[in-house]
C-alpha cells in the first residue's frame, strides 16, 4: 500500500513499529499534492521546508523509540481558521492574507503534543461562513466539496493527508464529510477548547475532525479532548432511531431511499431500528439557530466590517447586516428557546442509543459557487449532540452519500462504537478516481 493510502491509525502504527519513515511519509504526501492539488485546491499554505524539518526530528526520535504521543510523525491538515504559530492563517479573507499568529490554537497544541505534524493550512470559506473558496470535490471536480471546512475534507478524500481538523457552526464538518465520502466527527462542544479559533458564532462553534475510518477520528478525538472519552466494550447491536420528520422532507428522493436501505441493512444485521418522532420544539430549530447565528456573527465582525465592508463576501455581509437589525431581547429569546430545545431533544435518547438521518440533502451539488445546504446538520449542532457522518453509498452520479449519526451530549464513546458497527455493516470502500 502506498503511504498516502494509509489511514491515520495505520500510519501511526507503522511509524511506531519502525515500518514507515516520517520523512518518507511526508515526501509521499508532497508527491500526492503535486499530482492533485492544482485540481483540488485544498490548501492555502504549505510550508514544505518546515514540515520536512519536523518530520526529520520525528524520525530521529522514533529511531530511539522516543514517541511524543499517539500521532507521532503523522502529518495532518489544519483548517485555516485555527491559529498556527508562525504559520500564516488567513481565515479565508484578504484582510488576513499576511497574518501570522504568534501562538497555536488549543486544538493545534494538543495535536502537536500528540506528535502530529502540521502538514498545512487547508482552505476555509470566508470566515467559515458560506462564501466559497476555490476547493473542488475530488470525486468530481465540477462539484463543491461543501464547506466551510472545504479544504480539510477534500484533502483527506484526495489522499493528501490521512486526517484533518475543521470547525462546525451549523454544518461545516458534517456536510463536507458526507460530500467527500469520508468520516467526520463533531464532538460535544466542551470536549475540545476553542481558544485560538477565529469565531463565526461563539455559542455554536465546535471543533471537528475528518478521517477515512471511524477509528481515525476516534484517535484524533482522543488526542485533542480535554477529558478522556469513556470507552465502551464492543457491541454489535444498537438502538437506532431513524428520524424521518423534517430530514426526509429536506432530502432528495435518492438520499431518502438510500437512507431507508441503510436502515434495512442495520435491522437485518441485528440493530434495533425504529422511527423517532420529534418533539414540537424541533419546529423552532431554524428560527433559533439563525437568530443566534446572525446576532453573534454581527457582533464578532462589528469593527472589521465597519472598517472594510468591501472586503466581505455577499453571504457573510447579509448575515452581519441582518444581525445588526436584531435587538438584545431577540438574541436572549433565542438563547432561552435553545435551552428548552436542548432539554426536549435530549429526551429522545431515553429510548435510543443513536439517531440516524441523511447527512446532507443528497450528493454534493454541481458548481463551486455554493457549498451546499447545512439544513441536515444544524439541528444537531444547535442541540450540541456529538455527531458523525459515515459514507455508506454512492449516488447515481457516482458521488458519495453519508449517514449522520448523533448521540446524547458527552456520549462520544457510544457514538463511536455505534459508528464502527455501522461502518462494518456498510463496508464502504469506494474512493475518488483522482
Amino acid at each position, binding site marked *: 500500500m502506498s503511504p498516502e493510502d494509509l489511514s491515520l491509525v495505520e500510519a501511526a502504527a507503522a511509524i511506531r513499529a519502525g515500518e514507515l519513515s516520517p520523512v518518507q511519509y511526508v515526501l509521499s504526501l508532497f508527491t500526492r499534492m503535486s499530482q492533485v492539488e492544482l485540481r483540488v485546491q485544498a490548501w492555502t499554505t504549505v510550508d514544505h521546508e518546515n514540515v520536512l524539518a519536523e518530520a526529520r526530528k520525528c524520525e530521529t526520535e522514533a529511531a530511539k523509540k522516543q514517541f511524543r504521543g499517539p500521532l507521532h510523525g503523522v502529518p495532518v491538515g489544519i483548517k485555516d481558521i485555527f491559529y498556527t504559530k508562525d504559520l500564516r492563517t488567513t481565515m479565508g479573507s484578504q484582510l488576513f492574507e499576511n497574518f501570522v499568529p504568534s501562538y497555536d490554537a488549543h486544538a493545534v497544541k494538543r495535536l502537536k503534543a500528540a506528535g502530529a505534524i502540521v502538514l498545512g493550512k487547508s482552505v476555509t470559506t470566508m470566515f467559515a461562513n458560506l462564501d466559497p473558496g476555490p476547493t473542488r470535490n475530488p470525486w468530481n471536480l465540477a462539484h463543491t466539496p461543501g464547506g466551510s471546512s472545504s479544504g480539510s475534507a477534500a484533502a483527506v478524500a484526495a489522499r493528501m493527508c490521512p486526517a484533518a481538523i475543521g470547525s462546525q457552526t451549523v454544518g461545516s464538518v458534517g456536510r463536507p464529510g458526507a460530500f467527500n465520502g469520508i468520516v467526520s466527527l463533531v464532538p460535544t462542544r466542551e470536549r475540545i477548547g476553542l481558544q485560538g479559533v477565529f469565531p463565526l458564532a461563539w455559542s455554536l462553534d465546535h471543533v471537528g475532525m475528518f478521517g477515512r475510518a471511524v477509528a481515525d477520528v476516534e484517535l484524533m478525538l482522543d488526542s485533542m479532548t480535554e477529558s478522556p472519552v469513556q470507552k465502551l466494550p464492543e457491541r454489535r447491536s444498537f438502538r437506532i432511531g431513524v428520524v424521518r420528520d423534517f430530514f426526509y422532507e429536506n432530502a432528495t428522493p435518492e438520499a431518502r431511499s438510500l437512507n431507508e436501505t441503510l436502515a434495512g441493512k442495520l435491522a437485518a444485521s441485528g440493530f434495533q431500528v425504529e422511527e423517532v418522532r420529534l418533539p414540537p420544539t424541533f419546529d423552532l430549530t431554524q428560527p*433559533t439557530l439563525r437568530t443566534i447565528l446572525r446576532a453573534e456573527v454581527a457582533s464578532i465582525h462589528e469593527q472589521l466590517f465597519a472598517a472594510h465592508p468591501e472586503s466581505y463576501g455577499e453571504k457573510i455581509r447579509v448575515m452581519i447586516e*441582518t444581525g*445588526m*437589525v436584531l435587538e438584545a431581547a431577540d438574541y436572549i429569546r433565542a438563547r432561552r*428557546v435553545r435551552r*428548552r430545545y436542548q432539554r426536549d431533544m435530549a429526551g429522545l435518547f431515553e429510548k435510543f442509543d443513536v439517531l440516524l438521518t441523511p447527512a446532507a440533502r443528497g450528493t454534493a451539488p454541481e458548481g463551486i459557487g455554493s457549498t451546499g445546504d447545512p439544513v441536515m446538520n444544524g439541528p444537531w449542532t444547535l442541540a450540541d449532540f456529538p455527531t458523525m457522518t459515515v459514507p455508506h453509498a454512492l449516488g447515481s452520479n457516482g458521488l458519495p452519500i453519508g449517514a449522520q449519526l448523533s448521540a446524547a451530549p458527552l456520549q462520544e464513546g457510544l457514538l463511536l462504537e455505534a459508528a464502527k458497527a455501522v461502518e462494518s455493516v456498510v463496508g464502504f470502500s469506494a474512493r475518488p478516481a483522482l
Partner: protein
Amino acid sequence: MSDNPLIEILSERAMEKFGHQRAEKLRSEIEQLADELKKLYSAPVEPLDEP
C-alpha cells in the same frame, strides 16, 4: 403580502443603518428574519429557561 409587523420595523432599522438601496436588497432576508422572530416569540418559555 405578510401581515407580520416585524417586517416593517426591521426594514426601517435596515434603512437607517444601510440606506434605502441596501435595505431593499435585504428585503427577502428581512422577511425571513421577521418570520423567524415571530416564531421565536410565539414559543413558550418560562422564567427558569435561562439563556
